[in-house]
């Protein structure tokens, strides 16, 4: 596995290149070094041989054999000189540093003679180069350098008194010295070892430097990318690669981050459109199926109504059937409209006017029920951009609800508007929340104030259970599904993947307890204190937007109120306490409309005393 890593491959490649370059370099280096050394030794040896020759010249001329012997013996004592011999033309050793040799003959095939006597006819002149040779005296001895120096005849030789040599003799004999090469060889060996050490060290150094930089510049960003890819593949679309480098890999990381972001958006859209499409298909199917039987009822009943002109009792009954069937028709139509989710057509408008218009729509009903309407409108409201029809529908629905709640004995409905500035704390709804691995934490089955709550698994004091957190930033109507005490710490986990949600490195600035961190797909992270009773929460992304202007509309009645156990369910579709009189769609539609306008609706109710709905809609965004 590790063999397949880029870093290792690169190191191997660089290592092999270094080895080959250094090997070639070392080879030539050693060769030239040994050549130079040997040439130097040779030159030295020849010089020495010349010196010996000249030092014996006088002795030769005077034929002072003892003197020459003495000379040669002394020279032969030097440690680096293996031997000094002088032999005559026929090969008889006349003088030698090794006295045993004197008088013996040298084989013409021996190393010393080989240079001249390679052919049968001996050569008379030798170049300096040819006079030297390197050989070993025996198999296991060190190398030696032999230098032969022919002694040529000259005038003084044949003129001398001894007349030992005739005039036509050209070479009188040969001076042969052998010098051992132990030191030279030792030096060469040392430099070889040095080169090898240098080569090994440079390979090691280059590889580790390359390795280090590859790790820093390639390995780390690539590992980051691979990890990020795996995380995204597992569904975490909020993951971002941090510490992006400034090179091409950094560009890749940046575009990876961008891709993840786009992917998350696309997925969200796809999910939404998919949901809407399937709901649309369902609604359309239901509409078609219901409309056919409704046609039967409506056409027959209206037909009967037409024929029952004279029978007023029958006519009244039939009227009920017709009008109720017409209501069915409207419901189905609104279902179809909902499925098609007509985009709100927003316009600048005055909220007070919309309320006035809504009141005129329901005026009759209010008069019949003897309901007193109190209006408390602020005059300084800015015009806000809303879908007039939808907002009107909201107020008509709320006023009708209020009228229904007041019952038959009359009562008061108070409508008031005001302009308020609010910090996002305590208002902003957390609409999507995920764990670090992007598992959805929103719990649609458990709603707090009509909004899906945030569900996390909790472990405290050995107990395990779930906590449903209030989805409003800054509000704490949490629901604890396990016994929970102020003194014990709580561990929070994602219910799906068990990833811890508590960040152990951060602590609540208020009470120093550990804090949890939840993620949103588009609006940063939300932090909050895990301690029961500590209400610290922070949502930097939202806080940074500062205070905003809202229009607050208050609809209160003096009616029967909503039972405590029902108050959490009032926004659920098809939930109704009006029995046969309502569809149960009213408040859920209202909730949807207000949500579409980025507003919020809250309810306070006391059984027997009345209900108060508060709507806030953001003022025009600058």
């Amino acid at each position, binding site marked *: 596995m590790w063999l397949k890593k880029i870093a290792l491959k690169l190191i191997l490649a660089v290592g092999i290149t270094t080895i080959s370059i250094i090997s070639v370099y070392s080879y030539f280096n050693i060769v030239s070094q040994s050549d130079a050394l040997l040439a130097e030794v040779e030159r030295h040896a020849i010089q020495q041989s010349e010196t010996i020759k000249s030092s014996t010249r006088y002795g030769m001329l005077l034929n002072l054999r003892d003197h020459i012997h003495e000379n040669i013996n002394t020279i032969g004592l030097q440690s680096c000189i293996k031997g000094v011999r002088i032999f005559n033309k026929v090969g008889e050793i006349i003088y030698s540093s090794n006295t045993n040799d004197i008088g013996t003959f040298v084989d013409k095939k021996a190393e010393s003679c080989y240079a001249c006597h390679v052919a049968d006819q001996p050569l008379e002149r030798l170049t300096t180069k040819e006079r030297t040779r390197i050989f070993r005296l025996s198999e296991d001895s060190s190398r030696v350098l032999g230098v032969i120096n022919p002694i040529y005849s000259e005038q003084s030789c044949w003129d001398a008194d001894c007349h030992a040599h005739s005039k036509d003799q050209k070479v009188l004999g040969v001076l042969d010295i052998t010098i051992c090469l132990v030191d030279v060889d030792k030096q060469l060996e040392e430099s070889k070892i040095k080169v090898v050490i240098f080569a090994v060290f440079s390979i090691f150094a280059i590889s580790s430097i390359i390795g280090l930089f590859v790790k820093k510049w390639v390995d780390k960003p690539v590992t980051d990318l691979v990890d990020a890819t795996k995380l995204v593949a597992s569904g975490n679309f909020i993951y971002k690669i941090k510490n992006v480098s400034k090179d091409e890999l950094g560009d890749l990381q940046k575009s990876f981050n961008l891709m993840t972001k786009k992917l998350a958006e696309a997925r969200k859209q796809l999910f939404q459109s998919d949901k809407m499409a399937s709901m649309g298909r369902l609604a359309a199917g239901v*509409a*078609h199926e219901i409309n*056919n039987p*409704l*046609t039967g009822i409506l*056409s027959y009943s209206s*037909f009967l109504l037409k024929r029952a002109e004279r029978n007023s009792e029958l006519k009244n009954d039939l009227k009920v059937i017709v009008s109720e069937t017409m209501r069915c028709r409207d419901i189905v139509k609104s279902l179809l409209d909902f499925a*098609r989710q007509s985009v709100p057509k927003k*316009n600048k408008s005055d909220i007070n006017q919309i309320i006035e218009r809504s009141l005129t729509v329901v005026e009759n009903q209010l008069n019949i029920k003897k309901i007193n309407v109190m209006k408390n409108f602020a005059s300084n409201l800015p015009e806000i951009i809303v879908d007039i*029809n939808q907002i009107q529908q909201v107020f008509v629905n709320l006023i009708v609800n209020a009228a229904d709640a007041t019952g038959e004995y009359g009562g008061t409905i108070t409508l008031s508007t005001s302009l308020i500035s609010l910090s996002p704390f305590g208002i902003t709804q957390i609409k999507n929340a995920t764990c670090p691995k992007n598992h959805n934490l929103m719990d649609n089955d458990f709603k707090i104030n009509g909004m899906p709550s945030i569900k996390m698994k909790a472990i405290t004091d050995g107990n395990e259970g779930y906590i449903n957190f209030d989805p409003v930033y800054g509000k704490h109507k949490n629901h604890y599904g396990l016994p929970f005490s102020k003194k014990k710490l709580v561990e929070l986990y994602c219910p799906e993947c068990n990833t811890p949600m508590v960040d152990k490195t951060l602590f609540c600035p208020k009470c120093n307890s550990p804090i949890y961190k939840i993620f949103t797909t588009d609006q940063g992270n939300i932090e909050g204190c895990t301690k029961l009773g500590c209400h610290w929460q922070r949502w930097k992304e939202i806080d940074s937007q500062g205070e905003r202007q809202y229009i607050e509309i208050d609809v209160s009645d003096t009616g029967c109120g909503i039972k405590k156990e029902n108050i959490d369910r009032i926004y659920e579709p098809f939930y109704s306490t009006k029995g046969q009189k309502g569809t149960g769609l009213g408040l859920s539609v209202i909730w949807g409309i207000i949500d579409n306008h980025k507003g919020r609706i809250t309810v306070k109710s006391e059984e027997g005393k009345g209900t108060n709905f508060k709507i806030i809609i953001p003022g025009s965004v600058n």
Partner: protein
Amino acid sequence: MNNLIDILIVDDEKVILDSVERICSFENLKTDKVYSVNEAIKKIQKKNYRLIICDIMLPEIDGFELLEYLRTSEIETPVIMTTGYSTVENAVQSLYKGAIDFLPKPFTADELCCAIHRGLKLADIQYKLNHPEKNDNYDSVLYVPCPPKYLRLGYYSWVFKEFDGNVLIGITDLFLKTMDSVKSINLITQNVEIVQGYSCANIETGDCEEHMVLSPITGRIIEVNNKIESEASILEKNPYFEGWLYRLIPSNYEQEIKYLTSCSTEMF
């Protein structure tokens, strides 16, 4: 005209066929009923009908195919389309493909009667137009077609684009001629957006409680011709100029005119 039957009803639901038949017989109209387009085509080949009421969502072949069959075989019988899946698209498509009316289910007996009366009247006009020899007073103009530069949605309503990009919309004379004289017209207020194929006005006449006028185009109303509300006769006297209903800023003109027909093409 032998074996002339007033109405052919095409629907896959027995209860609807029966109820329509009952209502028609109450109005002294003779009807035939079939369950599918194929059966309808067989009937049409054998007999003459003054009017066809056809469902859109039918098994195997849908109602639009019947319109196509009638067009290719040059049968002029007017068709009222009806469907439980009553969307704007279906309404606009029906009218574009040659239906004279679109009646969303569920409908009341009155709504059905209004549509049938208009359809039969249209069939009469059409018959007279194509058989001038049988016309009693030969020279009389049956209806005023809309000016050539106008576009129309079915035979219902017209739209005219002004130089500044706004559009005028109104009701065609032929549509008015299929009703009794107009008693009153209810218009929508300014600043509201109306949608192509949705009702944009109600006309009350002597014979029916209300006739819906389907808007030929989507847009925001910037001006309402209030004059016609107080004096409905203008509508009948001059439906293409003085009798306009609304001035709109169209929101999707280029897309929507695909479903409109040029007034230079004859209605029949």
